[in-house]
Every structure is written in structure tokens, then in C-alpha cells.
């Protein structure tokens, strides 16, 4: 372990010095310079674009010690011990034509001085005692390809491994999402940032670790098929291309292969973890052994930059694609051509195998996504993404997710039928993956945003950053988020209480209604009583009317009789005085009686007139009372419906309650999660401040 650490350190040193100015370091003055440590990176960076194994300008290759010592078409390049007879030095020092590098001003003197010193010291290959940096630290080959879920818990960064949580640097702006990968078995995604790879929990969105990639920009990220390793390929354009493999659980960098003169654009590790294939603008696919870091084979068939490649999940085949649409399938172990897949007319942007290895999907700038079967190498499906497609990935369940220049990530079933288009991203959608359980889809765009959506409803549920805040800032942010969440929790609790109250109220109401249903008399009785009263009043009024009519009639008769009597009396014309007196008295009496009868009649008539409207009113009241009964009866009839309505309302509120309770639960869970994150961040911060930075 100690040894490993030392190696890591020396590696870091070389990388940190990038420009290869090791000779300028006074501490190293005593040590003899050697090719591997001091010269290789310098030559690769400044000369490797032309004098590499592919271009071989003037037949000279400077990226490999043996080849360099062989010289080029113009003779030897290095004469150990004699810099002035070594064109490698004289041309760079502008002591002899052609001056190198061409068309550029002279390199700073340090470069020439370093070369001079190295040659003077005998042009050594390596320090001799030093282990070859490229060699892996451990044999990771599996011996066999395991299909399906690996045994044991799914590989996630372990808490004990204490992966760094601080980004390498917080940049003013995020770079485009150049690579994105999802673990096949765990809620773990890897996002490419500048000079770093970020591991996130795809369920919680928590940053689980930062893997430094000082080589440059990772252009490709791949999890091994069992999810325990993470591979990154990338580097610095026109200077360096490399593939790095980390142990997901420990965050340890265990393999590093490739000495490309330009950034690696495509790479993968075979399912049995014995091979690493990579491709770059050199147009070559190179396959390395993970055992000893040796180059096993090279594929020269492609005519343009290698832009994508992937091993089949059974480890038998390797599919590779290039910038002008060339797509090939090779036997992984022999690098022999298996199929040439013709169809794409523009750059292959991504290649993904179906988990059963029988189908490979390719996406292209020509706008199509194509599926190829491996029985005969035929194209079985081709459909348009809707714009040039920039990424295609199979999920573990055989669904396909793609991203394109229409800013949209789309989900397709295994036959290419559109299942879902996720909300458009802020800029070109460059990468897309499905989470291990296909419950979530992730898309990365040109502006540097990674969005997380739930597959079920297509809703955005989170965002991951390729340019995360520094740990301390993040902790502060989390703390403030916790506060907000706690506030939200209180509000949510209040809401739950409110809803509960409403449920109680509605339950009381239902009980009351049900009681009425059982015994509707409280509704019916008052109506019936009112009707009875009204009826009595009518009867009473009717009697009064009859009485008054009878009275009037008799008064009329009496009045008529008396009027006749009075007339008859007047007609009596007795001759004698007494008779006359009597007659007169009688007449007077008769008239008086008649007058009285008339008065009585008038009174009777008035009484009759008075009683009739009272009757009408009473009858009206009776009609109303009857209506009241009907209404009451109807009310009673409607009671069951009212019960149903209220029950439904109750149910709705119940649901509301569940939602509110869930919300509360979520918030509480989130708070717990955040608090845990906060705790972890704080712990990490604390350990950062106690242990000095490396």
C-alpha cells in the first residue's frame, strides 16, 4: 500500500509539471534525467502531433523510446552523450535546420536544455528502479464474464473510503457535459467535469465523490459491466490522451493506459476486465491488456477519428464508430473484423449494446438511431431522433434513451417507438442515460446542466452539476436548505392538521345525515303539524262564513217581511180616529221594525264580507302547508344521495391528507438526508482541515 501511494505521488508530480520542465526543478538536479519520467511527456506534447506512430513524419517517432532511438528517414535523432550530434536537440535548439517545431517560434530554452542534459547524461530510458507507471496495481481480470446482477451489495463508494468531496476547482462556468455514465446495478452516476469526474447518487442527487482527472477533459465515462469499476478516457487535445480506471468502492485509481498524442474520444473496458479499448483522432483503435498495460492490438480500418466504441456485455465483440459514419464490429480478443455496419452517413456519436449482447444501437449526426442484429450484421431498425442524435444508451431493461441537437432527451421502447420526450434542456442535449432501475432518466447538455427526470411521469426531479460548489460552500448551502426544508415541514404539518380537521367536520355531518335517514320525523313532523293547524283554521273560517251567510239571509227575510208589513200598515186606512191612531201606531211600529231589520241586514252583510277573505287566507295557508309536506318528503328522499356526496367529499379530503402526509414524510426524509449529507460534508471538512492537503 505504501508503495502504491508513492507511485501515485510521483505520478501526480509528473502530471502537475505537465510541460515536462522537470529539469528546471533544482531538487532533481542530482538525479539523471530519463525518457519515461522527463522526456516522454515533453516530446509528446510538442512533437507528438507529427512524429507519432501513425503520422511518422520523416519516419521519426518520438513518442516511444525504442523508436526514437531508431531515428527517422534522416538518420539517427539521438546520439547518447553527444547533444550536438543529435538532431533531436539541434533542431529544437535552432542550431540546425529544419528548426522544430515548424512554423512556430523557438521553444523556451528550458526545453532544449532538458533535451541536451538528457542526451548528455546518456539518453536513459528510465530510472531503472522505478516501476512502470502504466502497470496496473492489481490484477483486476475476472476470469469470466458474469452476466446479471453481481453478488453482494451493489458497488457504491464506501463511506470508509472517504472519497474526496471537494471539487478539483470551482470554475466560473461549467463546461459542456462531455460524458455521463450510469452504474448498471447501483443508483450511481458519473458526470464529467473539467479535470474531474463526479460521482452522484442518482436517487438523492448527493455528490458521493470527486475523482481527479488531471489529464484534462474526460470525453468518455463507462462503468464496468459489474459496476465495480469506472473508466474515463480523455485528455488534452493535440497533447495527451489517456484512459484511467478507478475502483468505484474505494475511489482508487488502479489502471492508466494509453499514450495518445491527442485526447481519447472513445474507450471501454471489457466485461471480464482484461481488455481496455480506446480510440482518438489518430483514427486507430488500440486495445490494451489490463494485466500489464501492454498494447495488444491496433485496428487501422477507420478512415476518420474514432468517436465511439463499446464491448458487448458478453465480452465477445467490440463495436467501434468514427467521425464520418464508419461503424464496425470486431472480435474483441483477436481484433479481427466481424461486421462492417453500413448505413450511417455522418459521425457516429454513440454506440450501446443491448444487455443480452444480441443487438447494438448506434446514434449519428445524420439524425438516425439504428439497431443492428449480430446474427448477420443486418440493420433491423432505423429511426430519427428528431435532430442529429448525439447519444444513445440502452437501459438495463432494454429501453433506449437518446439525446440530440433538438435539446431533448427521448425514451424509446426496444423497437424504437417513442415512449416519452422529456422537457427540453437549456441547450443541445449531449448525453443521456437511464438509472440502473430505469426509474430515472438523466440528460447532460451543452451548457453544463445534468437534469434528472422520473421516467414514470417525465417530471424533472433534480439537477446534478459538473461544476459543483466547494465543499464548504456546499455545506453552507445544505444547511440553509435544511432550514428551508424545516420551514416547509412546519407548513406541511400545519396543512396535515388542517386537513385532518376538515375530515372530522365532514364525518360529523355524515353522521347527522345518516340519523335523519333512519328517522326522518324531525323533518316530516313539523310539516304535518303545520298542515293540521292550517286545516283547522280553514274549517273555523268556513264555519264563520256559513254563520254569517245564514245570519244575513234571515236578516234579509225579516227585513223583507217587515218592509211588507209596514207597507201593509200604511195601506190600512181606518176611518176612525182610534183606528187611525192604532193604524198610525202600527204603521210607526212597523216602520221602526223594518228599519231595525234593515240595520241588522246591513250588519249581517258586513260580517259576511269580513269573514270571506279570512277564509281565502286560511285556504292559502293550507296549500302552503301541503307543499311543505311534499318538500319535507322530498328532503327525506334525498338523504341517501347527500350521504353519498358527503362520503365522496370525505374521501377526497382523505386523499388530500395522504398527499399532505406523504409530502411531510418526504420533507422529513429529505431533511434527514440533508442532515446526513451536512454531517458528512462537515465531517469531510473537518478531516480536510486537520489533515494537510496533499
Amino acid at each position, binding site marked *: 500500500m505504501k508503495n502504491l501511494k508513492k507511485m501515485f505521488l510521483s505520478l501526480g508530480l509528473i502530471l502537475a509539471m505537465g510541460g515536462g520542465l522537470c529539469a528546471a526543478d533544482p531538487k532533481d538536479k542530482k538525479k539523471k534525467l530519463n525518457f519515461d519520467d522527463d522526456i516522454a511527456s515533453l516530446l509528446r506534447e*510538442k512533437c507528438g502531433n507529427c512524429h507519432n506512430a501513425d503520422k511518422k513524419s520523416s519516419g521519426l517517432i518520438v513518442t516511444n523510446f525504442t523508436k526514437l532511438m531508431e531515428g527517422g528517414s534522416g538518420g539517427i535523432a539521438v546520439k547518447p552523450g553527444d547533444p550536438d550530434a543529435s538532431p533531436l536537440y539541434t533542431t529544437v535548439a535552432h542550431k540546425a535546420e529544419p528548426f522544430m517545431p515548424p512554423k512556430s517560434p523557438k521553444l523556451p530554452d528550458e526545453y532544449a536544455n532538458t533535451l541536451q542534459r538528457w542526451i548528455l547524461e546518456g539518453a536513459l530510458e528510465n530510472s531503472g528502479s522505478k516501476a512502470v507507471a502504466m502497470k496496473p496495481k492489481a490484477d483486476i481480470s475476472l476470469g469470466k464474464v458474469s452476466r446479471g446482477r453481481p453478488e453482494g451489495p451493489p458497488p457504491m463508494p464506501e463511506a470508509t473510503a472517504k472519497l474526496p468531496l471537494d471539487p478539483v476547482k470551482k470554475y466560473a462556468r461549467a463546461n459542456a457535459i462531455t460524458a455521463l455514465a450510469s452504474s448498471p446495478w447501483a443508483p450511481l452516476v458519473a458526470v464529467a467535469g473539467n479535470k474531474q469526474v463526479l460521482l452522484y447518487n442518482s436517487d438523492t442527487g448527493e455528490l458521493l465523490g470527486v475523482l481527479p482527472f488531471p489529464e484534462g477533459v474526460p470525453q468518455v465515462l463507462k462503468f464496468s459491466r459489474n459496476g465495480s469499476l469506472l473508466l474515463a478516457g480523455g485528455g488534452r487535445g493535440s497533447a495527451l490522451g489517456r484512459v484511467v480506471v478507478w475502483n468505484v468502492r474505494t475511489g482508487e485509481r488502479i489502471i492508466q493506459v494509453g499514450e495518445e498524442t491527442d485526447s481519447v474520444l472513445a474507450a471501454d473496458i471489457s466485461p471480464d476486465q482484461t481488455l481496455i479499448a480506446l480510440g482518438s483522432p489518430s483514427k486507430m483503435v488500440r486495445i490494451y491488456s489490463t494485466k500489464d498495460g501492454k498494447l495488444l492490438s491496433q485496428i487501422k480500418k477507420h478512415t476518420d477519428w474514432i468517436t465511439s466504441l463499446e464491448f458487448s456485455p458478453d465480452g465477445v465483440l467490440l463495436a467501434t464508430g468514427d467521425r464520418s459514419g464508419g461503424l464496425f464490429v470486431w472480435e474483441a480478443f483477436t481484433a479481427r473484423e466481424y461486421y462492417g455496419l453500413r448505413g450511417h452517413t455522418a459521425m457516429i456519436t454513440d454506440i450501446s449494446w443491448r444487455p443480452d449482447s444480441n443487438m447494438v444501437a448506434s446514434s449519428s449526426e445524420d439524425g438516425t438511431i439504428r439497431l443492428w442484429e449480430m446474427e448477420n450484421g443486418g440493420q433491423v431498425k432505423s429511426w430519427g431522433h428528431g435532430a442529429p442524435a448525439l447519444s444513445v444508451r440502452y437501459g438495463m431493461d432494454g429501453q433506449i434513451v437518446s439525446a440530440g441537437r433538438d435539446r431533448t432527451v427521448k425514451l424509446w421502447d426496444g423497437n424504437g417507438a417513442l415512449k416519452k420526450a422529456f422537457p427540453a434542456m437549456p441547450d443541445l442535449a449531449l448525453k443521456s442515460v437511464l438509472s440502473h432501475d430505469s426509474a430515472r432518466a438523466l440528460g447532460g447538455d451543452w451548457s453544463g446542466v445534468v437534469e434528472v427526470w422520473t421516467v414514470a411521469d417525465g417530471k424533472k426531479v433534480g439537477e446534478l452539476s459538473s461544476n459543483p460548489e466547494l465543499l464548504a460552500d456546499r455545506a453552507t448551502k445544505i444547511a440553509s436548505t435544511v432550514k428551508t426544508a424545516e420551514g416547509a415541514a412546519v407548513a406541511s404539518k400545519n396543512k396535515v392538521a388542517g386537513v385532518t380537521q376538515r375530515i372530522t367536520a365532514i364525518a360529523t355531518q355524515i353522521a347527522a345525515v345518516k340519523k335523519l335517514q333512519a328517522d326522518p320525523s324531525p323533518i316530516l313532523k313539523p310539516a304535518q303539524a303545520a298542515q293540521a293547524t292550517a286545516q283547522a283554521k280553514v274549517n273555523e273560517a268556513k264555519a264563520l262564513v256559513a254563520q254569517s251567510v245564514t245570519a244575513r239571509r234571515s236578516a234579509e227575510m225579516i227585513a223583507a217581511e217587515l218592509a211588507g208589513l209596514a207597507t201593509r200598515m200604511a195601506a190600512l186606512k181606518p176611518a176612525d180616529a182610534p183606528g187611525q191612531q192604532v193604524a198610525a201606531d202600527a204603521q210607526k211600529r212597523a216602520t221602526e221594525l223594518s228599519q231595525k231589520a234593515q240595520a241588522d241586514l246591513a250588519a249581517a252583510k258586513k260580517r259576511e264580507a269580513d269573514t270571506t277573505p279570512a277564509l281565502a287566507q286560511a285556504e292559502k295557508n293550507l296549500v302552503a302547508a301541503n307543499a311543505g309536506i311534499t318538500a319535507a318528503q322530498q328532503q327525506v328522499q334525498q338523504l341517501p344521495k347527500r350521504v353519498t356526496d358527503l362520503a365522496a367529499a370525505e374521501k377526497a379530503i382523505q386523499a388530500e391528507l395522504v398527499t399532505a402526509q406523504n409530502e411531510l414524510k418526504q420533507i422529513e426524509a429529505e431533511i434527514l438526508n440533508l442532515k446526513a449529507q451536512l454531517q458528512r460534508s462537515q465531517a469531510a471538512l473537518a478531516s480536510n482541515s486537520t489533515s494537510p492537503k496533499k
Partner: protein
Amino acid sequence: MMYFRPTTRFKVLGALVMGAMLFAKAPAANTPAAPAAAPVPPSSLPNPVKLEIFPSDIKLQTKRGEQRYIVVASFADGITRDVTGEARVRLANPTLAKIENHVLLPQADGFTELLVEYGGRASLIPVSVERAAEERPISFKQDVAPIFMRTGCNTGGCHGAARGKDGFRLSLFGFDMDGDHQRLTRELNGRRLNLAAPEESLLLEKSVGKVSHTGGQRFSANDRYWNTIVRWMEAGVPVDPPTVALPVSAELFPKNAVLDGKGAIQQMVIKAKYSDGTERDVTPLALFLSNNEASAKISPEGVVTAGERGEAFIMARFHTFTIGSPFVVLPKALQFSFPKVPENNYIDTLVNNKLKKLRIAPSELCSDEEFLRRVSLDITGTLPNIEDYNRFMADKAPTKREKLVDELLGRKEFAELWVLKWAELLQIKSSNQVSYKAMLLYYNWLQEKIAKNVPTNEWVQELLGASGGTFKSPATNYYQNETDILKVTENVAQVFMGMRIQCAQCHNHPFDRWTMDDYYGFAAFFSQIGRKGTDDPREIVVFNSAGGEVSHPLGGRQMKPKFLGGIAPDVTGKDRRVVMGQWLASPENPYFATNLSNIVWNHFFGQGIIHEVDDVRISNPASNQELLTELGKRFTDYKYDFKKLVRDICTSRTYQLATTPNPSNELDTRNFAKASVRRIKAETMLDCISQVTETKNKFPGLPVGARAVQIADGSISTYFLTTFGRATRETVCACEVRLEPNLSQSLHLLNGDATGPRINQGNLIGRRLAEKKPMPEIIEELYVRTLTRKPTATERDRLLQLIAAEGNAQRALEDTFWAILNSREFMFNH
């Protein structure tokens, strides 16, 4: 403001030597402490006669505004000197701007003047500073895109190639800036740019040579270009709004210069105006070129360094503009005085003006004999006969040369010669598209126009606007010859305006002002040519179809018809070609008259003022612009009667100069300081041989004895004509007529049927011997017939000796005749 208005100042300044009076107005605080004594030129130099500051006014806008200035002193002998470094320069109000390395940088808003003193002269220019505290937002099109041209990224050999270079393409000289933005930012996402760490972007690492780059280092880390690109990336590589201000014009200073000896330097300054009215110093963004590196080399920063004696055209390319300034480089402290020579007309004045500038003396006047032969060949395409010769030589009148010119211009051969010329340019020939009959009618139409001396503009308008049947209205054949819209467009521009605009079909013209917008806007005039057949399969009807548009290949915009270098006229309801023709052949079109004048000039000097005549472009400037302008003006004033123009040319002393050089004009080929020796074109050559041998030709479709210049059909030729470079009329190129000598020509004249058999056939010698003419007289006649001169005494004596030695007089004389026909003196016009 404590200053006068600048205009007043200029008046006051006039010839004023800057002194205390002027500065007395400025408050003491603003006056730099203890100004040094006004600098004087080195003792060897006299005081200048003129002191100029360029640009002539300075506007600094926003915090990012900047403007370099140059001070140029002119001396009495015409020499100019860049005295920017020696002159005393200051601002009337130094608080408004600061001066760093001859660059003004804004400090505070306001108006002031830049004051310059040198060698007892003074000058000033107004300076305004606006929005000095305001930042100017970064723009791709304004700030970033020009870098790619300046630093050579988008040339045809590098990323500007149609397929790009090493996987990365930029549009050639930036004709498609939107496309460049797209390719840079979004073609290969995450490769070329790194928005997280802009300075680590591949674009920059390659450009500054931090990593291997086939194109080497183009600029350096932290320099102006690097910073601009980083700033653009830090802003998130924004796409410019469609309203972004683009350059509308650019000016290069100084407009001309005469450098005194090897090593003299001159800084160039280029200022551009933008569509929003702002101005910028684009010297750091322009690409500088010289068309003569040996005489004047220019550095990328715009510093011209004088080399060998000669002329150079210093050009700057910026945005879609190419602009240039003519430079003259003289040997250090050259002593020269221009001889006193008479000037017959304006042509001589203008030619001599240029020669004076170049310190070149014209050759002597040619002899009468030379003139007679030269002008006869040039105007009529024939050799003078013996009577013409004797009459002209006997004439003692001082104006006899003018008289001769007038006489020759009246001959029908003059018209025939120009019908031939135009028939070449209009590609009159029978073909699968044009029947023989249609061709003949077309030729006759042209012949009638020229023979009747119809003003050129009139018949050109008729030609370009022609509609109707190719028999009834023969001018329509012009549109039958070539049916491709874009080819027609290019031909019209090349023939009538002298412009090769082909480049602009696919990208903005790299060496001229023409953009794709100009090209397709002009092509829109030819988009509505309808063609239909008639009962006679040989005849086609050309008509205005009133429908059809041209769209721009980038973005598919429909182009409005727009005159090349002119306005976009209203064409609704009109025949677009008629509208275009009326503009093209009119004074509105600045190129028409000068181009035709140049074609005429070229005919008489074997060298255009702009050469080639159909390669008018900014980067191929006229050798004497004033002369060309004046010719064009005269031609317009003559109502496009080109006979008058020919008369001006042929009566000028310049045309009549001898071919013999003097030491000062020996090396000059472009300034008409001596007459040039020219090959005679195929048709004229054959006619002359026929004329002197008194033989007849038979061409298809023409009677026996017809002259070769009369052949109407371009597809008809003979072995002789083809060998001597008769135009095939396949293209409109001026290079169709080939005048380069070659071996087949020599062999054909030595051994072919053009000389020996014709001498026998014409039997001139036999007849003269039969007439018993004395031997010297026959020899003299042969000389006059062919060379328009009498043999010298030596020639005559030696010939007589040879003839006597031969014995057979006929054979000897025929050999003499043959020898003369094979002499360079006969084959060339001199």
C-alpha cells in the same frame, strides 16, 4: 468648451506654423510641462511642404475604444515620410485620452484636438471621446471572427479550405460567420472549447502553439487575440443578436506614399465604420498584403518597409472589404529631372504625371514610318500600301498624323476589327443551342450597330434587354448562347464591367469587395428569362417570364435584384433585364465607361491600364487610376462614341512613343513610358500576309477573297488561325485571344502554306520581274509593303549582292520575300 470649433481652427491653422499663439488658449494645467523644442527633420532633409495626420478624425467610443494615428510629412519632391515617431504630438485636453505608442485610449468624455508639429509645420485633427466608462459587450462577429482572418486561420490552405484542415473547418475568409460560430462551439461538443477553463481550450492551446498544431503558432498567450477569445468564452460564447452592428466601410491610411530608398518605413492604419454609426481602429484586426514584396514588404502589424525601386499596391483585408494604397519606392536620394516633352492632349498629361512620380522619362517620339504601320494595324488591321506610304511620307503638314488617324477611322476595316472584338466577347458562334442562321443574324445585328457607330450604351442596353425570336430580334441570341442564370450573370459582369465575380458564387470574394449577397443580388436580374421554341426548330423565343427568383445558398434568403455595386431598384412589373441594362450601360454604373475605355486602351497598347482588362478588382489596381477615370469620363461625355476615344488615344504622344527604351523606363512595363512590341492577332496576321502576297482566302460562308476578320462564326477556324490563337469564343475571358508565341507558329511560317506557297501563288515577284522593274525598286517595294519602311543602304546592298550571287533573280527575290515574312519585324506591331 474652451476651444474654437474645429472648423474654425483648421481655417486659422492654414499655413500657420504652430507656436505659442495656438497653445496660449489652453489652460496651463493642460499644457504638458516644458514642451521640448519642436522637432526638426534630420539636417539632410528639407522641411516638409505638407504635414498630415491619419485618420483625419478620431472617435473613441466606449472603454474599449482605441485609435492609432500616423503622421506623414510630404516633401517638395513628392517623397513622403512616416514621421509619427519624430513629430511632437499632444492633445489639447490631455485629460480626455492618453497616448500610448501612438495609440489614443479613452479617459473621459468630451471633445478635443490632437496637435502635431514637425519640421516647422503643424496640423491637428478633432478627437471625440464618448462613453469612456462604458464596457462594450464582446461580440463574435465584431471581435472574434476577424481574428481568424488576421492570423491566417481561415485561408484556403488552412481551415478555410472547403473541407477544412485536420478535422476543423472555418469559412473561407469568414464569409459565413454564423456557420463559424456553430462549428466552433457546437460541432464537436467539448473538444474545441472548454467553457470551464477557457485558456485550456484546444482552440487557444493550438493557436498559441502550446500543443502541436500543423499551422504552427498563430498568436501568443495573453496577447490581444488570446484575450479577446478568452473574454468571449467567459461570456459564454454568446451568439450575436441579428441586429449586431457590422462594418459598412473601411478606410486605409495613408492613401498613397512615395518612399525614399530601401529601408524607409510607413505604418498603415485602417479604420472601419459600423452599421450603428460607430467607428473602430481595426488595424490590429486587418490582414495586410503587398502585391510586390520586393519593393514594399508589409508586416502583419501594418508596417511597410521599402525595398527595391518599383511600385507596390499595399492592401488591407478586413471583413468583406479589400482596400489598397499605391506605394512608390524610389532609390535613395535619386536625382532626376523630367524632360520637357510636348503634351498632345489630356492623355499625355496624365501619363506624364504618373511618370514624374516614378521618376521615369518617356521614350522619344516614333518615326513617321513606324507610326504609319502601327496606327494602320491598330485601327484597320491592315498594312498601308505603297500609295498610302508615299502620300504620308510626302506630307509635310505638322498635323499629318492626326489627319491619318481621322482617315483610318473612316474606313470600314475599323468597324470590322471591332465587330471581331465584340463578337469574341459576345461569344458569337454557332452551336447546338444557336443555329447557324441565328448566329449569322446575331453577327449582322452587331455589325450594323458598329458600322453605323451606334453609341455603345444604346446597343448594349438593347442587347441586355432583348426579347423576341432569335431570328426576328437577333440580340436575344445573347441569352441563347448561355442559359445558366449564374453563368449569364458572371458573363455580363466580366464583359461589360470587367469583373470576375465567380468567386462570390460560393464565398465572399477574397480579393475584392464582392460578397455573396452582391453576387446573388445581381443574378436575380437574370432569374426571369423565359425561353420557348417556335415552329422553326432553329429559332427560340426569349421573353420575360415575370417569375422566378434566386435564393442565397446560405440560409435560402430570396434575393432582391440589386445592381452590382449599386442600388436595389424597383423592378415590380418590369422586365428585370431591361432595368439592369439601362443601369449597366449608363453613367450610373461607374464601371461601364472605364471598362470599355480600358478595353480600347488595351487594344492600342497591348496592356490595359488595368491588366487583364476583365480582371478589375481592388487587389489589381489600375496602373494609372486618374487616366482611367478621365478616359471613362470622356467616353461618357462623347455619348459613348468610341471612335472619338480612339482618336484621343491615337493622337496622343503617348501612343506615338518609340519602342526604344531609355535608361529610366527600361524596366517599366505598366506605365506607357515607351511603346510595346506586340504580336499581331491571328485574323489580322492572316489578312496582312494575304495583303502583302496578294493572295485570296476562302472561308466557309464567305466569298473568295474575304478577310479573316470578317468570319462571323466563332466555330469556324483554319489551321493558321488556330495556331496563331484565334479565340474559340467558348468563354468571355480576355485570355481567349492568345498572343503568346509558340513553336508551331514559327514552324508554320517557316514551312507551312502561309508564306512560301502564297508568295508563289500571288506571284508578285514574277509580275514585277515581268514589268522589268529594277532590282532595288523591287526590294524597296517588298520592304514598304511589309515593313512600311525602305530598306537601309546596308540591307539593300547586301540583298543585291546575295541576289547577284544566287543568279536566279526570281528565286532570290522570293527568298527575300519569305525571309521578310518570317522576320520579327513583320510579325510584330511596333
